């Protein structure tokens, strides 16, 4: 059960996201129970924070679903990457571990599984993964609850909604490592400004598609 211990430093980073999500969900008008249960049902930070904004803007359900799908599509990569390590497990284990497969759990688990000297024996591997995933899950639920509670106390004048772009800046900027990534971000941002007036909050999806295309074009040219 070393998984939860290796996850500890990451938990500190997750804590504020959970609180911010919970508070934004309440500010968007979601009932507290729904805000909390979304953390169990979806269990994906960025996607949940984006949903609060879509709810606040009155976006239609289909847009919410498509946006959530696109934002979480990257988890398919993690799924492919951990698949060989969980192949021998029973179905309930596989499903449980798939549910716990977040960015943060993946980062810790795959580091452990692929490091040469610290590979746990196959009999215990899934316990490591389970420990890391559950530590994260528990932190996410508790920090959501804290945010739901705080969100109701914080007055409108504090401009709490500004925590959303600030949080995303803190996530995006450090991961801008090459030109293709920068192109994806820049084009996504600029198209979002140009397409802001589109009906049904379609601007976000349109901007995402253009941004992804820009990233692909730049990386294709440099190869």
């Amino acid at each position: 059960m070393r998984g939860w211990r290796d996850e500890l430093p990451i938990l500190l980073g997750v804590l504020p996201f959970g609180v911010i999500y919970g508070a934004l969900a309440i500010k968007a008008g979601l009932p507290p129970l729904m805000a909390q249960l979304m953390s169990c049902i979806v269990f994906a930070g960025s996607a949940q924070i984006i949903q609060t904004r879509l709810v606040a803007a009155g976006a239609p359900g289909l847009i919410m679903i498509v946006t959530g799908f696109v934002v979480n599509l990257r988890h398919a990569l993690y799924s492919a990457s951990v698949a060989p390590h969980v192949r021998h497990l029973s179905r309930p284990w596989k499903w449980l571990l798939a549910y716990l497969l977040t960015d943060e759990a993946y980062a810790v688990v795959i580091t452990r599984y692929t490091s040469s000297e610290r590979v746990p024996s196959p009999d215990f591997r899934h316990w490591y993964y389970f420990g890391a995933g559950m530590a994260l899950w528990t932190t996410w639920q508790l920090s959501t609850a804290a945010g739901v509670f705080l969100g109701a106390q914080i007055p409108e004048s504090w401009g709490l909604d500004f925590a959303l772009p600030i949080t995303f800046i803190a996530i995006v900027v450090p991961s801008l490592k090459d030109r293709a990534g920068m192109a994806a971000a820049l084009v996504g941002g600029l198209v979002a400004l140009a397409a802001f007036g589109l009906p049904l909050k379609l601007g976000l999806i349109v901007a995402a598609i253009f941004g992804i295309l820009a990233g692909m074009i730049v990386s294709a040219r440099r190869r």
Partner: protein
Amino acid sequence: MSPQDPSLWIILGIIGLLTFAIRLSFIEWLGAKKIPAVFTHTLRFVPLAVLTAIIFPEIFMRNGEMAVNLANTRMIAGIVAGLVALRSKNVLLTIAVGMGMFWILQVVTHAAN
């Protein structure tokens, strides 16, 4: 979709199921398959494009209009936060400085008016 609409539960349920299906995809169904390199490359750009597409209108627009000027406290605090993130790569510090800067500017502009 209004936040009080009961059908929001269904929407959230679908989003949850889709997210779970994505996470389960290769573990349960596609285990032996290799992901095409194009797919891997493309997915890397998704969060960058989506998150920036949310950031830009939040900081460069006010009330649905472009607001690229020094009176836009969100823009200035956002740019400062971006610089802090670039230098420090520290998530907590970025959030703290960004929100702090925003509150200070709010107070200053209120006092000036």
